[in-house]
Every structure is written in C-alpha cells, then in structure tokens.
C-alpha cells in the first residue's frame, strides 16, 4: 500500500523545461511560421517546421541536448539560405525569413523555462511583424488568435500553479487575450503615431498580382481568377447603370504580333483631347488598394485628374509615385461623352492604325473584304466584326488554348475560344486592318454594387479589356467585342469573369461580396487610421487638432479609467469568500507565501503546506511552526475558532513578512 500522493503546488527550483510548456512553445513557433508562410518560399517554411517537429520529437523521446555543432551550423545556414533566396539579408521579406529561422533554431537550445520565456517574447514580436505584410481583417484576427499558444506557454511555464494541463493553460491565455483588448484599443487610438504607417516600407520588388502594362493572349488569366479586391468606389449620387461601369486603366496602342503594350504613342506629349460632355458629370470617391504601379482607374471617361495625378491625352490617369499604400482619390467622369469627334490628329491616327508587318494574313484579308463591301461606312465594318463574334461560333472560355505565331488568325479562324483580351485584341487588329483607328483599353468592368453600404466593389477578377474605335463625327467610341459573344463556358475558378457581366460566380461569391462591407470598414477605419485621423480624435471635445501631448494626457486618463474600472469589476466579483476571520488571515498568509513562490495546491492539506513552507524557508521556520500549530488547532480542533485566538493568529500573520528567493 503506497501512501497517497498529495499534489504539491510548487515544484521547487525551476530546473528543466517540462514537456507541456515545451509542446506549447513548439505550437507557438509553428503558428509564427504559418503566419509568415505566405511570403516565404515553401521549402524554407517546410524545413523550419521540420526542425521544430524533429526537436519536439527528440525532446519527447529523451531529454538530451542538441549538439552545439548542429546548432552553430543551423545558425549559419539560416541567414545563408535567406541570402541565397532573396539576394540580400536586408528588407522586409529577407528580414522576416531570417528571424523566423532563428526562432526555429532557438528551440534547439531551449532547455530551461528562461529560454522558453525568451522564445515566447521573440515569437510574439515576429508574429506581430507578419502584419507588415498583410493588414486584412481576417489575417489580423488570425495573428491575434495565434497569440493564444504563446500566452498558454507562459501560463504553463508559471511554477506552482495549482492547475496544470492544456485546458487551464489555454483558458488563461484566452482570458489574458480578451482582457488585453481594451488596453490594445486605447493604445491604438491614443499612442501618437507616425505620419506614414510602418508598413509603407518599400518592398523588394517581388512579383505582384495585379494588372501589368502588357496584354498578350492568356496574360490576364491569373487576374481573372483572382478574387482579391482591386478597389472600392462610392458615388455621390446613384451609381452609373451596369452597362456603363467601365473603369479605364490604360490604353494600349502598340501591337507586336503577339502582345499589346502602351507603346511609344502613349508617351508622346500630344495635345489633350477635350471631352464633349452631354449629361451631368458623375462624381465619386475611389479607394484603390496597393497595386505597386502608377496607373489609377476612373469611370470612362474622367474629365480631369485628381491631385497628385496626371491625365494622359488618351484619358488615362496615372500617379506620380507607385501606389504602395491604399490610395483615396476623387474624380469626376462623363458617362455620355464625345472624344475628338471632328478631326483626329494625324499622328494619333497613324499610331492607331499601325500594325506589325508579316503577321495574320487571314485577318488582313477579312478586313479587306469588309472594307470593299462597306465602302466608306466605318460603322458597318464595326457591325460586321461584332456580327462575326456573335454568329461565328465563338466561345467565351477562361481556359483558352494557346495560340500559334499568327495569334489573331489562329484565334479568329481556328480556336475561336478565349476571353476579353482575345476578343479585344482580335477586334482592334481587324479594325486597324480595315483602316479604322482603334486602340485597346484595359481596366475593370462591372463590379458588385453593395446596396447596403452604397459602394461598388471591384475585384481583380473584374479586370477587362475592350476596344475603342475612332469614327468620324462620333470620335472615340467604346466597343466591347466580348459582350457580343453568346456562348459562355463557366470556368470553375471562383468568381472569374466580371468580364461578361457576372456570368460566372460561385455560390459563396455573393456572400463574400456582402461581407466586403466589413473589410471596407476595416480598411477605412482601422488600417487607414493615420496621424491625421488621430489628430481629429478630440473634435467632439472641441479640439480641432490634437497634439502628441494631448494624446499622451488622454492616454494616461484612459489607462487610469480602465484600470479603475478593472479594479472595480474585480472587487465586485464574488471570489472565494473566506468563511471567517481565521480563513481571511490564512488566505493572507498563503498569499504572502505565494508571492515568494510557495503556492499552496488546491488539494494540498494545510499541515503538508506548512511543512513544505518550513522546509523552503529555514529562516522563518520557527514562526511558521507556530503559525501552523495555531491554525491547525483553531481550524480543526474547535467547532468554532475562539475570536481571541483568531485575532492573535491574524496579528501574527500580519507581522510575518517572509522573504526568500527561489534558487
């Protein structure tokens, strides 16, 4: 018969790192790696995760140490690998990759609670740096939740807590996380901030999604299957009708037989073409998400450029700097307009008719036939071309087959399958071949009108290409050949093809569109909360612009109020109410002992606890023995502790100030 083992709270001097906190620490590090995985090479993340897993397994099997040689080798290998991948150790991505690697290597030498605490602090910092790469609401929430294992690790590292295990650790972590929210909110609002957000730091020119200034068949495919938000537009009045929601990005003038590019024509300083306006202008605000390019988008066609932007002669807007942060601008557009109706500048005409020699003889021949049949009627040729796309067995399909050297011929007479850029490219080619000035316009079309929050949501998948032809007397006219195609094959790629007016959307897309309100709010209110917005914070109190000092004072007051409120809540909470004066005194004693690391276990008998305290505090042994005898007799030898003796005990407890540092 073994004597029943009574759990004791303290485990004496902290020696090794227990399995539970170590496992939690490994989980924390894996979370950090997951948060940074989107911008790190897959193999790199995998290797780091494998190191963590191997270390966990090694420590689980036996409590051996990892050889110093291996640690040093990894310590050298991590930065070397990063430099090999990125070419430099500096910058956002390489920096994050290096610290992630170092964190994983840190686990190899974590043998004591102290190491684990340091690793947790390090992990929290690296976790936060993941927000430099993405500030979307969902990601921010995920990063916040990833703090849970970190906090749970800290809880599990705490010596001598009565409860141990996964559940109490995570419960405490969740409580801490929740309790920190008010403080985080105050800090967010009131800590004076820099004029530019930290995450405005330039990237390393890594490949980005978004539009490029080159359009070859198939180029837009990745864009059309990308559901990322491109921009959000709020109109002053009613939104334009759906068939007029064309957002002009850039004009491509030059064709080299395969790809359309802006070409030299786009850069020439031609005189601006005035816009003939018929209807009242449409005024609207655009929130353009970072594209890291220069061009800005506006409803067809903008009448003038917003601040810090210029308008080209082809009515495209471009920013003077690459758009690395979310950009807000206000534009006015004419939806019913005329561009150069009377006369086309001969240089522009030449540029708009230019075709590469030796390509696509079939298309040339077809255009010749149309020209012969139509005589001088350009509009009839346009109608002929649209009729060809409508009735000629053309198919809209994102999964277009690759085209051979004569890409236009191959598409027109052979594959007959493609999406906006195939149609825009072929149509523009045909027009030029028939002698009609034409150009390709790339931008966005359609979008999701959020009636609830009153804004138009444009995703990358709404990217579109169309044509403009110049007709005498009417000027530049927008022609969307893709709209003429009648057969549409639905791709299974999410919400692709805003292209054809939303013919292809998966079931969750509408929900995503509706929920975008939250992302918009997040972007405008939280991510967009800059020094300027902060300065306006005290307007309700009659302060036009809050200075840093005012913010500091506000922060101090707010912190004071929060702490006071917290203290009030704590005092109202019905915590273990001591049953009598004796229990109160005993609690005080236990509290004093707990502060120096002698924590009483929930199920630890009072006499056991006292003997343990005596053993831990040889200097106070005699006092503790007296206290022990008094307490045990008062509590367990009497039905009702006599008040006189209870007071004496309480007095002795008050005068007892144990001092001891755990070795």
């Amino acid at each position, binding site marked *: *018969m*073994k*004597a*029943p*083992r*009574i*759990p004791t709270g303290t485990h004496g001097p902290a020696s090794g790192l227990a399995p539970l906190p170590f496992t939690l620490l490994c989980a924390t590090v894996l979370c950090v790696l997951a948060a940074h995985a989107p911008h790190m090479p897959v193999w790199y993340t995998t290797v780091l995760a494998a190191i963590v897993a191997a270390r966990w397994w090694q420590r689980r099997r036996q409590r051996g140490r990892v050889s110093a040689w291996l640690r040093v080798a990894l310590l050298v290998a991590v930065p070397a690998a990063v430099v090999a991948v990125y070419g430099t150790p500096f910058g956002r991505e390489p920096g994050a990759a290096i610290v992630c690697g170092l964190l994983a290597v840190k686990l190899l030498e974590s043998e004591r609670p102290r190491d684990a605490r340091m690793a947790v602090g390090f992990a929290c910092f690296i976790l936060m740096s993941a927000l430099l790469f993405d500030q979307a609401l969902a990601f921010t929430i995920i990063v916040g939740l990833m703090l849970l294992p970190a906090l749970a690790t800290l809880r599990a590292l705490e010596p001598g807590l009565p409860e141990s295990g996964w559940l109490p650790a995570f419960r405490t972590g969740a409580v801490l996380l929740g309790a920190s929210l008010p403080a985080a909110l105050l800090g967010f609002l009131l800590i004076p901030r820099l004029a530019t957000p930290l995450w405005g730091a330039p990237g390393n020119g890594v490949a980005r999604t978004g539009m490029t200034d080159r359009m070859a068949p198939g180029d837009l495919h990745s864009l059309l299957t990308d559901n990322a938000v491109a921009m959000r537009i709020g109109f002053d009045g009613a939104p334009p009708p759906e068939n007029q929601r064309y957002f002009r990005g850039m004009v491509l003038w030059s064709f080299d037989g395969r790809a359309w590019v802006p070409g030299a024509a786009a850069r020439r300083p031609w005189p601006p073409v005035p816009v003939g306006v018929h209807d009242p202008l449409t005024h609207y605000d655009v929130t353009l998400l970072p594209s890291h390019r220069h061009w800005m988008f506006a409803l067809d066609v903008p009448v003038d450029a917003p601040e810090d932007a210029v308008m080209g002669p082809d009515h495209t807007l471009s920013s003077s700097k690459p758009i690395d942060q979310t950009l807000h601008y206000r534009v006015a557009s004419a939806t019913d307009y005329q561009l150069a109706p009377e006369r086309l500048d001969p240089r522009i005409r030449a540029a708009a008719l230019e075709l590469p020699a030796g390509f696509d003889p079939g298309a040339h021949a077809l255009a010749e036939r149309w020209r012969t049949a139509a005589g001088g009627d350009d509009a009839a040729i346009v109608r002929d071309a649209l009729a060809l796309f409508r009735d000629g067995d053309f198919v809209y399909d994102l999964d277009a087959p690759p085209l051979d050297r004569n890409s236009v011929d191959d598409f027109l007479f052979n594959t007959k399958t493609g999406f906006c850029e195939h149609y825009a490219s072929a149509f523009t080619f045909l027009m030029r071949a028939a002698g009609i000035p034409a150009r390709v316009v790339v931008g966005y079309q359609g979008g999701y009108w959020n009636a609830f929050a009153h804004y138009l949501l444009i995703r990358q998948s709404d990217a579109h290409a169309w044509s403009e032809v110049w007709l005498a007397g009417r000027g530049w006219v927008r022609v969307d050949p893709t709209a003429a195609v009648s057969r549409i094959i639905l791709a299974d790629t999410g919400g692709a093809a805003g292209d054809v007016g939303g013919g292809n959307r998966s079931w969750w897309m509408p929900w995503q569109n509706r929920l975008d309100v939250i992302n918009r709010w997040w972007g405008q209110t939280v991510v967009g909360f800059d020094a300027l917005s902060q300065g306006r914070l005290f307007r309700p109190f009659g302060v036009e612009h809050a200075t840093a000092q005012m913010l500091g004072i506000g922060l101090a007051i707010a912190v004071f109020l929060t702490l006071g409120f917290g203290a009030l809540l704590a005092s109202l909470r019905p915590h273990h109410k001591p*049953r009598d004066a004796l*229990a109160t005194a005993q609690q005080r004693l236990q509290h004093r002992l707990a502060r120096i690391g002698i924590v009483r276990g*929930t*199920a*630890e*008998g*009072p*006499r*056991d606890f006292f003997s343990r305290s005596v053993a831990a505090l040889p200097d106070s042994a005699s006092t503790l023995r007296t206290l022990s*005898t008094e307490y*045990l*007799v008062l*509590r*367990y*030898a*009497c*039905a*009702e502790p*006599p008040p006189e*003796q209870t007071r004496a005990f309480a007095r002795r407890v008050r005068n007892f100030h144990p001092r001891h540092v755990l070795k």
Partner: protein
Amino acid sequence: MDQNFTVAAKADSLTRQRLDAAIAQVNEVLVGKNQPIRMAFACLLAGGHLLVEDVPGVGKTTLAHALATTLGLSFRRIQFTSDLLPTDIVGVSVFDRDSGAFRFQQGPIFAQLLLADEINRATPKTQSALLEAMAEGQVTVDGASRALPEPFFVVATQNPLDMAGTYPLPDSQLDRFMLRISLDYPDADAERRLLTGEDRSAMLERMAARLSGPDIMTLRRQARAVTASPALLDYVQALVTASRKHPDIRTGLSPRAGLALLACARAWALLGDRNYTLPEDVQAVFVAIAGHRLIPARNLARDTLAQALLETVAVE
C-alpha cells in the same frame, strides 16, 4: 497551547504506550510495511474490517497472525474453498444425547480476530454468511441470535490475479470492508533484512500480547471521540459529493462510505497522537476507503479514480 484546546479524548498514556508498542512489534515481523500496518490498526480502531488484496507470499497471513498475537485476541483462521459451507463458518446445532436437546456447536467465526483466507474462493452463499456476521456483529442459527465476541475484527485476503475458479466479491459486499489495502513487494532494503533475519514463524511464536480486548474497546471509544471540526466535515462531504458528480464514476461513495471515511480519519488522527482530525488524515486513508467502492464509468483503475478525486477536491 491554551487550556481550551487541550485534549478531551487523548488516549490515556498507558494505553497509548501499549498501542505504540503493538504497532512496533508488528513492524518487526513485517519489515518495511509501516504504512499498511498503520492502516490495519486504523481499521481496527475505527471498528471496521480489513480486506488485504495481494499476490501470495507477501505476508498477508503473517500480518493477520502478528496482529492476533499482538492484540491479545482469540484468533481463528478459515481457509476459504469452493466446498466450504456456511455452517463450516458459523457453526451447527448438534443433538446432545445427554441433555436430549440440540446444542449449538460454535463455528470458527466465534473469535475476536478472524482471518478469512482467500475469501473469493468460496461460493457467494458462504461468503454472505461471513459478511452478514461482519455487518451485524452476531450470527443467527436456528432462529437464535448469538452475539460474536467483542472486539470482532475480520481480516480477509484475496488474490487479485489468480481469478480461475473464484467468486469475486460483488461491489455491494466489498462495501462491508472498511479498508482495502495491499502489501506490495518489500523494497530492496526490507527484502535483504527479511532474507538475513530470523525466521518469521519463530518470531511469531515468541511474540507477546501488547494489547487486550478491553484496551481495544477503550481505544475505539477514544477514536470515536476525536474531534472532527466543521471545516473537516466540509472536506469529507466535498470528497463524497465529488465522487458522485465525477464524470468517470458511475456510482460514487455511499453514506456508509462517508461514515467509514470519517471514522477511519479519526482513528488515523488517534494513531498520530492527535485528538483532532486534519484533512491529511482523511487524505491518508481515502484511497484505501474509496478505492474498492467507486464504480468507474469507463475501464479505469479504481485507485486512480480515488487519487484523482483527492487531487481535485479543495482543502481549506
């Protein structure tokens, strides 16, 4: 200490000394078994019966013998077998030709200390004859109740491993044993002393009685008088309640188990020369009391469950 707190029911010093001497003597025979021996004494002083569960050869019978001699009690041993009949235990009425009437021939149960060896080898009918006697303190034969001698202390043994051809005691019967202990193998040091030391049976023969029946009755009275404060009763109640609410326990501790726990904790306090009960006393005897009474909901070790209860219920 203040006069108010001094002893009300402290064993008078002579009885006390004899008790210590008795424990010491049993300890001499069973080397390194201090804890189970104290348990056996606690069980005796709390007025319960003892179930010793262990493999053969670890000293179950030696313990019973040593106890009987040391306690100065009349001792009988029954080896339980499958053909043992209730009358073999209780006794039988035989016709006395001289007086022309039936005369009751007392069975081995009429002893102060009864060793029921391998109790699980007998049929349930025979087992229940013994258990009834244990509960009632008397036997009824031919309509006449006959009181058993006082004190009446049963030490039953069973082998938990060799289950072939046995009738394991049902849970309801197990409840009649106040404590269930096991002796376990001796540790290396004790084993060496056992090997080099004197022959056990010779030691047993040499042993003298250290206590007597009346002494034990006095000690039992004193154990009952040990203070159990409201705080302690709270703890006992908390343990019992927790056993009934625990998700892994199908049937928790009965009120009888609660009473046994309190009685045993008091006896344990008395053994510790204290006239008030501490939570530590409760904890010391809890597994031995609850281990065989808890019915797990899943396939869990009963002692583990008892231990788990002990580790979760808070103490003041």
